[in-house]
């Protein structure tokens, strides 16, 4: 019997939601690490009971927790994230040089090929890798040093590396995204990188063809088609069919193309999901209606998914790492809100129901399909 395990990171702890394949009855455990910000949890695709969690607080800094039993018990592992060499400066909000300073881990991405290897995307933006299951961390500094680093600038949430996409067909290739620098690609396991932002247009950037400086909110990829990337940018939903060499806007008929998360259906590589948010100054859904939008055409044509979601007086946000899909036959889609709800759909978004309603603000949602 298949099971689903939903890993939820919140502002005040982690929660683990489990259900059988029907996804109707849910068991909720937590809070784990009560009182701490849990930016992200993720399980190893090779060893699903191996989980990693990013635990942080303004008082005590960054911790990394690891579980070997699916989240029942945890142990603190390495939390020493030190930039390689003299880190230098990036741009501050006012354009002045500002030293690189480690603040927190935003995203953990376990390797597809080695259960002891895991990547960490951090603020201030850099990519770290551990090859000993989180005990020690080394920066893949080719990203920060490839040349454009001094021109990177933080977005409103900080200068975070929030997206790490691993190519299942090529262990050396990965894609990352930084707010507000843009998207980058490596083909050699992270030693060298190139910006992949051609075709992105960001209002108010003086150079309309700027190589970096774009506020990418999130990227997604279907594992069967690693050359096709989808992006929710600050404004605009974008698509690339050539591994990021060029991008086209596919916002189409969305009521607003501002938003944070984007994800791809587990079995339909052209079916994608976004949650339109009114604007960058009003981080809540348009008209107080919480609507997931689905495109079955890889963008441009979008339909609102509303059944089971609040359609009045809803003013929550859905953050960039707070949407995920399971890989059961009828693809499940999940997202969490800053109001503490986690919604799930067991039929690819046609119908939704809250799994849990009153958690702390949800920062991240990941799903494991356990067979």
């Amino acid at each position, binding site marked *: 019997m298949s099971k689903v395990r939903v890993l939820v990171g919140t502002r005040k702890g982690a929660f683990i939601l489990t259900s059988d394949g029907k996804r109707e009855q849910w068991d909720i455990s937590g809070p784990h690490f009560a*009182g*701490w910000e849990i930016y992200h949890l993720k399980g190893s695709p090779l060893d699903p009971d191996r989980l990693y969690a990013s635990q942080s*607080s*303004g*008082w*005590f*800094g*960054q*911790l990394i927790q690891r579980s070997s039993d699916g989240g029942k018990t945890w142990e*603190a592992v390495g*939390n*020493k*994230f*030190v930039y390689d060499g003299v880190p230098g400066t990036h741009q501050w909000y006012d354009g002045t040089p500002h030293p690189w300073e480690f603040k927190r881990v935003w995203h953990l991405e376990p390797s597809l090929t080695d259960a002891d290897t895991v990547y960490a995307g951090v603020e201030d933006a850099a990519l770290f890798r551990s090859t000993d299951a989180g005990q020690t961390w080394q920066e893949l500094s080719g990203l920060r040093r490839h040349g454009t680093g001094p021109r990177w600038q933080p977005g409103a949430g900080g200068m975070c590396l929030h997206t790490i996409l691993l190519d299942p067909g090529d262990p050396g290739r990965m894609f990352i995204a930084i707010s507000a620098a843009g998207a980058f690609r490596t083909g050699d396991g992270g030693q060298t990188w190139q910006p992949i932002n051609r075709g992105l247009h960001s209002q108010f950037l003086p150079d309309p063809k700027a190589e970096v400086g774009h506020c990418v909110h999130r990227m997604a990829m279907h594992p069967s088609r690693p050359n096709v990337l989808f992006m929710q940018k600050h404004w605009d939903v974008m698509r690339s069919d050539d591994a990021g060499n060029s991008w086209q806007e596919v916002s189409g008929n969305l009521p607003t193309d501002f938003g944070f998360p984007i994800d791809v259906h587990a079995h339909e590589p052209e079916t994608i999901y976004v949650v339109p948010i009114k604007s960058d100054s009003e981080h809540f859904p348009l008209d107080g209606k919480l609507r997931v939008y689905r495109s079955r055409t890889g963008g441009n044509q979008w339909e609102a998914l509303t059944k089971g979601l609040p359609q009045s007086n809803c003013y929550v946000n859905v953050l960039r790492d707070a949407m995920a899909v399971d890989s059961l036959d009828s693809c499940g889609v999940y997202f969490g809100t800053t109001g503490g709800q986690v919604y799930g759909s067991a039929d690819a978004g046609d119908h939704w129901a809250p799994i849990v309603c009153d958690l702390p603000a949800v920062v991240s949602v990941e799903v494991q399909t356990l067979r």
Partner: protein
Amino acid sequence: MIRVVLPQHLRTLARVGAEVSVEVDGAVTQRSVLDALEARYPMLRGTIRDHLTQERRPFLRFFACQQDLSHEWPDAPLPSAVAAGKEPFLIIGAIAGG
């Protein structure tokens, strides 16, 4: 033995009670006490002092014998009552957050 009182979240992290004891060789200073504490409870590394600079994290304070020692030199001797184990060295989370 030097007595150290930890804030609640670090007790949970280290899986200890409110007060722990550590052995310090040589001079009893903030640095030597924290070195001994981190050696015994490695999961506390980086949570009280920055990994790289070894500076106190901004939202933590150090107290002992009714004194705020937060801005003392890390190698300055702690009060003799702390060194004698009569008084604890207190690590306090700053009251912040609204």
